[in-house]
């Protein structure tokens, strides 16, 4: 028996824009990333990579180096395993390719121009525009770089290949810092965009 048009329409509308696992992973990742960044700032302050550039202790997490390290090395497990599940499910279901591709430099350029003149619309919340695609893919890769450079700093003796890939122990700290800065930059723009399209926040919470 062929499915009735009504039935198809019902199941279409019942299907969330963001499946529940995407929503869960997204918010757990946001929590882990915020904890990692705030505690990371305190760790950075113990011995600044860039002389003279210190992050105000009041906006950091942990209170002292030991406390910050405890937060950092606890939140890393959430970031790591949650990230594995997100990437694993995205690859296994093919969602990664459906949602973020095709993606062409021309489309990014077009959407960037539209965004700058205030004409980029995000009416169909089930589709990401090219700017969103490139931003999300960038932050996903950035998080992978953060984890790998962090691992190179934490275990520079146990993972020689990773250490050399990062240009040695001291350089891995610079890579880690720059990847953090990119993440913070993404975060600011991301939250502003969500504020401009508040309906998208509902989709990331309720699915619709």
């Amino acid at each position, binding site marked *: 028996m062929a499915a009735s048009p009504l039935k198809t329409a019902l199941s279409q509308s019942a299907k969330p824009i963001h499946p529940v696992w995407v929503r869960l992973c997204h918010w757990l990742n946001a*929590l882990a990333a*915020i*904890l990692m960044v*705030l505690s990371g700032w*305190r*760790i*950075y302050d*113990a*011995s600044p*990579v860039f002389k003279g550039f210190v992050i105000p*202790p*009041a906006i*950091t*997490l*942990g*209170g*002292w*180096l*030991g*406390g910050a*390290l*405890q*937060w950092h*090395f*606890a939140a890393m*497990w959430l970031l790591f395993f949650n990230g594995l599940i997100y990437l694993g499910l995205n690859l296994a279901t093919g969602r990664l390719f459906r949602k973020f591709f095709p993606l062409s430099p021309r489309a990014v350029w077009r959407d960037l121009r539209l965004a700058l003149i205030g004409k980029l619309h995000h009416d169909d919340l089930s589709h990401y525009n090219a700017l969103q695609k490139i931003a999300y893919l960038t932050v996903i890769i950035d998080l992978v770089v953060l984890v790998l450079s962090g691992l190179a*700093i*934490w*275990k*520079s*003796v*146990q993972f*020689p290949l990773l250490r050399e890939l990062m240009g040695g*122990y*001291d350089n891995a*700290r610079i890579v880690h810092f720059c990847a953090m800065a990119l993440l913070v930059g993404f975060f600011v723009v991301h939250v502003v965009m969500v504020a401009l399209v508040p309906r998208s926040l509902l989709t990331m919470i309720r699915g619709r």
Partner: protein
Amino acid sequence: MPVKKRNSFLINPELDRAQILKDATRELALPTRRLFLKGAVTLGGLTMLTGCGLSDNQSVESFLMRVSRLNDRVQGWLFDPNRLAPTYSEAELTRPFPFNAFYGVEDVPEVDAASFVLKVGGLVTGKRSWTLPELYALPHAEQITRHICVEGWSAIGHWGGTPFREFLRQVGADTSAKYVGFKCADDYYESIDMPTALHAQTLLTFQYDGKTLPPEYGFPMKLRMPTKLGYKNPKHIMEIYVTNTFPGGYWSDQGYNWFGGS
């Protein structure tokens, strides 16, 4: 005796008052600890996220401590006893090598070389006291390795001494025990896992840069482990013991991770 409710947690007769006082004094003596609590409370964003106001700091702290102990086990498992830390050339040495301790350089302990005797205790069957000439006569090894501080900075130094596993063999240590502990002249204390104690680059160090270890780098001896962070490398060692009872360490008892491996 009637007990005022407000203070009942302080004067509960079932609690060991002396112990509480001791703990409280120790905690308060550390300015960083007070900051830890303050910092956690002022963090408004986190308060919003967890919704519990972090008023029960105690449970957050003990949770983080438990994760830290879990991380000890993960690191023990990641530790490859055959993996060597990178070594460097004379030209790459950091000069001057930074002095670092939990006190200023003016408070470095002075240990008298002539009367010094290293005590060895716990699960060992051999010689339990060692003079400096006896220690200097042990097989000699040198290394130029990177010292990585928990704060993030690193420095390359040149150390000379005897491979620690050779020393453990000489004193008839039970190498199936879990820990090796250290007591130091500056009231520092530290302990390490046996696999690290037996690592080829773990060096009982008597020399820096070809000369007798100067006081600021840990005279009469320092345990140098390029596979561990700086604070795990005890200086001014007076006593070494082998044990199966977890001895903790000066910094790890305050919250630094105990394994502290790199």
